């Protein structure tokens, strides 16, 4: 499967021109998307686990 294209270093915006949230998001610029996908998957799994635990402990 094709890896999603990421921007080159030179394409990145000047951080002084960014808002707080964009600056926060820019901190994750070097994190590969597959790790982010893994994190989202883990969070969804945790959500399912919490709901299951909640149902079992009622």
């Amino acid at each position, binding site marked *: 499967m094709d890896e999603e294209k990421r921007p080159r270093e030179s394409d990145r915006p000047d951080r002084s021109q960014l808002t707080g*949230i*964009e600056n926060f*998001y820019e901190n994750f610029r070097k994190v590969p998307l597959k790790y982010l996908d893994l994190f989202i998957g883990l969070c969804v799994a945790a959500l399912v686990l919490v709901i299951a635990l909640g149902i079992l402990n009622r």
Partner: protein
Amino acid sequence: MEKKSSFNVVKFMSDNAIILLVLLLALFTGLTSKNFFTTRNFSNLVINMSPRFIIACGVSGCLITKGTDLSAGRQVGLAACLSAMLLQSVDYSARMLPWLPDVPVWAALIAVVVVMGIIGAINGCVIAFLKVPPFIATLGMQTIVYGACQIITNNQPMGGFKSSYSNVALGSFMKIPYLAFFAVAVGAYFLFLYNKTRHGKYMYAIGGNESAAQVAGVNVVATLIRIYLLAGMMYGLAGFLVGAKAGGASTATGFGYELEAIAACTIGGVSANGGVGRVSGILVGVLVFEALKICLQFLGVDPAYTFIAQGLVIIVAVALDLRKYLAKK
């Protein structure tokens, strides 16, 4: 030339993970619980959703312009308290303002919306003129509004509303709760405002690139003030409805509503980075959040687990927004 299919199932599931999960949960709840797929429960869902949708519509303008409004919940609380003070029954013994004559419901609604609009406009002025980051400006306003609410109400919970006020939330027309009509009217207004007006175009332009919008002739200051003013008015309307729905109001009313609204917007595709967001998405976000809560209530899950689940939903929504941002840039 062979046309490559543009629909990617994995990407669709990844982008809509929370929505699909809540749909599955609703299906599971419906199959395992009695009375889940009933008109009564649907009506309950609509009643819960309506004020939250109105709040989320207000917050959405702030988010689209790369801002936020952390004072939303407390403003809703203040609006509910003001409505309660104005609309307590004249013969109620513990009336907060015993000297006040009987106020018509519509007059109280207008008064509350105007007061909250002024607070919203102050937020907008601080953000637009003084260039204070919205996060800080609205955090300050949140605390100010909470303090003002405590002073105004003497920290006393209020009840004993006159029946015409309670009927705003409890009444229905052809089994459709009145609250739904308020939500539909607000949704239609925002749909028109965001898609068909100059204000909507300016808003998306500011969210996309504020400097470019300014150079292109957009009055950024006036647009931002209008957005926060409108948001304040929406909190006023929502607070009025929340008070009527709850049958009482106190300084605790509206606590945490801002986070629910921001989370619902994010789930619905309103990017915290601005420039992106649709009214239909906000509706879906609010529906998902409320459906999650109602499903867990039906399943008899301890509220502590519900809070954890809601927190995880917010984290996933922000992570998905971050993923979209990184993939796009």
